[in-house]
């Protein structure tokens, strides 16, 4: 039957399983919004288009489904850019729909015209400009297919105003994707499996490096089967947290720049690294010249372009992680690894003594306390934490123990401040039954705090923990370590966050003492609506351990030892 482009848009989205979109209207997308009234899709009105992109991203990461953001042409489209890049770097499947000026006006510098397909070329998996309603159905089917298949990523569909307005015959069935060059699913050769098995069975000191791919591929069971069959310990990337239970005895914890010392030492001493769905980011390898010098490397990865990009590997298994592990696991022989595991235990050394959780209460409120208490209070419940970027993000990774996939949502690759609040909204919309906590710094919160209004308008129960230290904390830490404590442009003069929340109609609390943390968290959990807690923590606290940029992975700045108090000069 005949439909307008606007009607076709929503119908195609419905057929792709979309129930919620995040958007902001404007001139060039108005015909599409006009057709929204006939759709079952719920539209979440954001306060800034960047928020829409992050919400779509948070939605996708919480659910595994494609998230959708909608914006108008020009500034609406450019405001999506940071959110699109964030999704690209973390392989998150989102589809962004943007309005575009009429096709006759393209290239004329018309009002609110911008070349958004050109702008987003390097930060999308693929993008489209649609100038005819008749192209819309096939294009949208392709967009969703490309976004969710293979290594997922963002796809942008730019639709001219006349394509939204004009009518054409709509036939979903015949509008099949035509992607002759697209091959998302590759499989390793049998010979490559054999080589990998040989390395695994010959290894004396193997470590599994587990990344985001395990969650994206839905391979958490397969990972667990492999780990338990092989007895090989697991180190996780930031985005891998949750892919393997923290409480499992073979879980070492997070590796990399702010990983625990024994995890990084284990990697440096290993004779085999088995990288599963991770890409050897510079934040996990440190200096490549000195990275795991005695280890053979196996890389299981869906994207062939990641093989040998940063770290040269001995065997590459290119394919979907779940499929590869299902093929690999039955052939794994159980080997006694207790010697290696004992030596890893010894590497832990005095780490526990240095841990702030084990130090006597100094009367100060530390972010690590807040996050650890938050974890204890929410343990065993269905809770997802969405963090921003900076010190609080690293403390969350260290002190909140994730047992389940998708229970941590954070911007890893792009490191986007301002991500947490909107991404949490997306996560809550995707999974209303889940308790969602935002853990955010005072700097990042102010980048996107306008979305507090979205929380209220959508009546969402999202809890917000601001880790407020009055600084751009991670930048301050770098200035302390590497720029002679020259705190240029890092101290923040903040508003009273509790009053800000109250102005939006959100219940607020301010916590300054350690004893107030647990009651505040409990009270927030019991309250029916959104709650913001402003945790005023120690101002000049430091994330330890730290591998300085460019340093070898084992050359860490350790936590100060409590025995030699004088060295703790921070």
């Amino acid at each position, binding site marked *: 039957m005949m439909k307008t482009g606007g009607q076709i848009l929503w119908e195609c989205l419905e057929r792709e399983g979309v129930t919620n979109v995040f958007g902001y209207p404007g001139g060039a997308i108005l015909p599409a919004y006009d057709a929204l009234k006939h759709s079952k899709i719920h539209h979440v009105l954001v306060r800034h288009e960047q928020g829409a992109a992050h919400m779509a991203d948070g939605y996708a990461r919480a659910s595994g489904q494609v998230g959708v953001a909608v914006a108008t042409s020009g500034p609406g489209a450019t405001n999506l850019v940071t959110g699109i890049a964030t999704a690209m770097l973390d392989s998150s499947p989102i589809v962004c729909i943007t309005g575009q000026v009429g096709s006759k006006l393209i290239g004329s510098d018309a009002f609110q015209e911008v070349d958004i*397909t*050109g702008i987003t*070329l*390097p930060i999308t*998996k*693929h993008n489209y*400009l649609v100038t005819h309603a008749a192209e819309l159905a096939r294009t949208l*089917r392709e967009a*969703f*297919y*490309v976004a*969710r*298949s293979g290594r997922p990523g963002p796809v942008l569909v730019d639709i001219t105003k006349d394509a939204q307005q004009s009518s054409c015959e709509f036939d979903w*069935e015949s509008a*099949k*994707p*035509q*992607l*002759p*060059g*697209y*091959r998302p*699913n590759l499989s390793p050769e049998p010979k490559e499996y054999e080589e990998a098995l040989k390395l695994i069975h010959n290894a004396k000191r193997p470590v599994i490096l587990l990344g985001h791919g395990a969650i994206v591929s839905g391979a958490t069971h397969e990972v667990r089967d492999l780990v338990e069959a092989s007895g090989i310990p697991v180190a996780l990337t930031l985005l891998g947290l949750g892919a393997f239970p923290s409480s499992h005895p073979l879980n070492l914890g997070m590796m990399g720049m702010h990983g625990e010392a024994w995890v990084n030492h284990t990697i440096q001493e290993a004779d085999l690294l088995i990288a599963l769905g991770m890409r050897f980011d510079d934040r996990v390898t440190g200096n490549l010249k000195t990275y795991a010098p005695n280890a053979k490397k196996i890389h299981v990865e869906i*994207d*062939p*372009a990641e*093989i*040998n*990009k940063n770290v*040269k590997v001995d065997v590459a298994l290119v394919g979907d992680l779940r499929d590869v592990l299902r093929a690999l696991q039955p052939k794994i022989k159980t080997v006694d690894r207790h010697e290696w595991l004992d030596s890893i235990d010894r590497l832990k050394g005095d780490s526990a003594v240095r841990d702030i959780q084990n130090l006597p209460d100094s009367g100060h409120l530390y972010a690590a306390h807040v996050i650890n208490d938050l974890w204890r209070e929410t343990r065993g419940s269905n809770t997802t934490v969405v963090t921003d970027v900076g010190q609080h993000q690293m403390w969350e990774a260290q002190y909140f123990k994730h047992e389940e996939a998708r229970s941590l949502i954070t911007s890893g690759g792009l490191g986007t401040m301002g991500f947490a609040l909107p991404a949490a909204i997306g996560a809550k919309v995707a999974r209303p039954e889940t308790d969602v906590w935002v853990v955010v710094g005072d700097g990042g919160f102010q980048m996107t705090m306008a979305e507090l209004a979205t929380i209220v308008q959508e009546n969402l129960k999202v809890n917000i923990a601001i880790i407020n230290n009055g600084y751009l904390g991670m930048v301050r830490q770098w200035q302390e370590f590497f720029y002679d404590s020259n705190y240029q442009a890092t101290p923040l003069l903040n508003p009273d966050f509790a009053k800000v929340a109250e102005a939006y109609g959100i219940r607020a609390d301010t916590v300054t003492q350690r004893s107030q943390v647990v009651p505040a968290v409990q009270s927030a959990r019991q309250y029916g609506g959104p709650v913001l807690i402003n945790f005023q923590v120690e101002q000049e606290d430091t994330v330890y351990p730290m591998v300085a940029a460019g340093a070898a992975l084992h050359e860490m700045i350790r936590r100060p030892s409590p025995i030699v108090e004088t060295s703790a000069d921070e």
Partner: protein
Amino acid sequence: MLNTFVVYVENKPGVLTRVASLFRRRAFNIDSLTVGRTEKPEVSRMTITVDADQDQARRIEANLYKLVNVLLVENITAEPTIVRDLAMIKVAATQAARSHVLELAGVFRGRVVDVAPESLIIEITGDEDKIDGLLEVLQPYGVLEMVRTGIVAMRRGSKCSSVVSSANPLSQAAGDDDGDGVQYSV
């Protein structure tokens, strides 16, 4: 070393930008890029030469495949190939020098395609070395203007690229209904 890739792409607007943008973004330096039609209207063919080691060349290939519009990538560097570049060279050719210039063009099997009182245009086809050779000997007479197409390359023998030899790559592209698990091939 110089690597030569033959890249088949969908003949759609913006595909050249996607390919060029990829090389820029990944900091691979294109030495030469040519693009043109093939015997199939829906497929364009690029010949790209890039200075890259073996490992980089493999990553270039993998990254090209990540572009949705790329149908097939062949690294033909190590294979026996016919490589051709075309140049038009405008040479200062006064009365006195003209016969010398014509003689040189003849030696290189160049063709004179334009004659003016003070200059000639020589058209020459060949591999890059041959054209460089002609340029070198013409230099003393005064090269006024020069344009080169960049190289195109084709494998020797009867072996063909599957994109070209198969019935129609685009007709094999039908997906299934839900779009999941579709295996596309060229």
